[in-house]
């Protein structure tokens, strides 16, 4: 229904008023049909699967390493004093800027893309862990200490759960950076994946394909955000009474 209305608007603008150029603006129906066709040929399924695989691997690497660095920063003050502004600066560096660097290190292969994904999201995860822990209400730490919590137990039972709402926000941000890294990496490096289909569409001047893939990327991002991070966030906020 929505597509029909959009198509009508599209037809009016391209064929009757003629203010839109059909080579630049794709027809909604053709985009829709193309998405179905891409699914039928299984090309899209494979592309999504291979993209997702990279994304998950790259993201997990960045979560693990990022958390470790974050904890180290909290634990050893001099790391923080010396590197926090560097990390803040690196976080603002766009993912795309890492692609040439990564190609020189790893060549045109899978590792390059995973590296771009990981490096793109790691800094926001480090910063989230760092600030999440720093912003833990000191009263919780005091209370925990008077109840005999020390060292590793203090971390696992108090500091991490208390910092979790902030850490989750950082993980979410990291995820969105990972997505960007994935697409930029794939567009420049890969022979498979969503970014590559996007890139092929551009090469063939096929605006419908470009828009179709963009829509798919968008909806995948939305679905993951809503069903994975949205759920985790909601359950935490519910417990804390932040809703």
């Amino acid at each position, binding site marked *: 229904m929505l597509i029909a209305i959009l198509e009508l608007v599209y037809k009016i603008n391209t064929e009757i008023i003629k203010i839109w150029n059909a080579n630049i603006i794709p027809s909604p129906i053709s985009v829709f049909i193309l998405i179905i066709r891409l699914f039928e040929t299984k090309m899209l399924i494979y592309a999504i699967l291979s993209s997702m695989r990279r994304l998950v691997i790259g993201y997990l690497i960045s979560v693990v390493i990022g958390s470790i660095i974050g904890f180290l920063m909290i634990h050893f003050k001099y790391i923080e004093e010396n590197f926090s502004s560097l990390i803040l600066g690196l976080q603002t560096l766009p993912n795309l800027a890492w692609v040439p660097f990564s190609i020189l290190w790893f060549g045109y292969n899978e590792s390059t893309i995973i590296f771009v994904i990981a490096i793109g999201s790691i800094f926001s995860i480090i910063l989230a862990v760092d600030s999440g822990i720093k912003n833990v209400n000191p*009263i919780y730490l*005091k209370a925990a200490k008077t109840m005999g919590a020390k060292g590793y137990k203090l971390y696992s*039972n108090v500091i991490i759960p208390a910092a979790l709402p902030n850490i989750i926000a950082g993980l979410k941000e990291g995820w969105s950076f990972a997505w960007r890294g994935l697409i930029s990496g794939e567009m420049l490096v890969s022979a498979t994946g969503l970014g590559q289909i996007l890139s092929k569409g551009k090469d063939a001047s096929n605006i419908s394909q470009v828009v179709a893939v963009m829509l798919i990327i968008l909806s995948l991002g939305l679905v993951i955000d809503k069903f994975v991070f949205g759920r985790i966030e909601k359950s935490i906020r519910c417990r*804390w009474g932040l809703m």
Partner: protein
Amino acid sequence: MFNLFLIIQNISKSFGFNSKANLVLDNVNLLIDKGEFVCLVGPSGCGKSTLLNIIAGLESASCGRIILNGSAVRDAGIDRAVVFQESALFPWLTVIDNVEFGMKMAGIKKEERKRRAMEYLKMVHLTKFKDSYIHQLSGGMRQRVALARALAIDSQVLLMDEPFSALDSQTRGILQLELQRIWMETKKTIVFVTHNIEEAVVLADRVVVMSTNPGRVKKEFKIELSRPRKPESPDVNYYVRKIMDELREEVEKVAKAEYDGDWSVEKDLFLSNVDSNIGIGL
């Protein structure tokens, strides 16, 4: 009769260094018996909370030492449980998990933990809410949970830092009665900080009045009244009056420091007002 349990010896505390250092506690000495309920009262800024934190091991004294049951205390530890002014309960845990926390840290088994936690929850009448999260409770309920949590680690001393000051007066009254009952049941040694003299008289065996700037022990009052005590009883009132007189000077000192120099406490207006001259016609 003499059963010294908690010894606070020559405690001084100053914030900041060099000549500008601000002396908060000046040579405070206090001897507390086992099972005694001691209230520290004093105007704001007399360092009573700081003293409590030092006893708890959450702050360190500039000099002096705390001796509990024969050994000097250094860090925070489970021999001294603390109930804080604001709810320091963990929002990511349910009520019962909060109460179990200290036992969990001590490595006590799950069933045993649960059984004991339920006992303490029963003591504060909150068994119905054992699976609630903290934000679902009212202020009074939260402080009850905090009390249960502190009792559950079975410490030698219970330190309470203005635990009821954020509650409305009805809730506070109920909790004061409850605390009296729990104290009589458990015979804990309690050090309770408050700025509310009435609360101190209702609860304590001994009220320690502190002076301000720097904080010192000004005077101690033994409260020899039967329990449970009610805040409205005339006996309580008598002690409140006595302590109030002692404190007035201190309160004035604080006010003078905070307000403009020409400020002074109003004189007692009672007899200078003609309409209320009750001696007339006798």
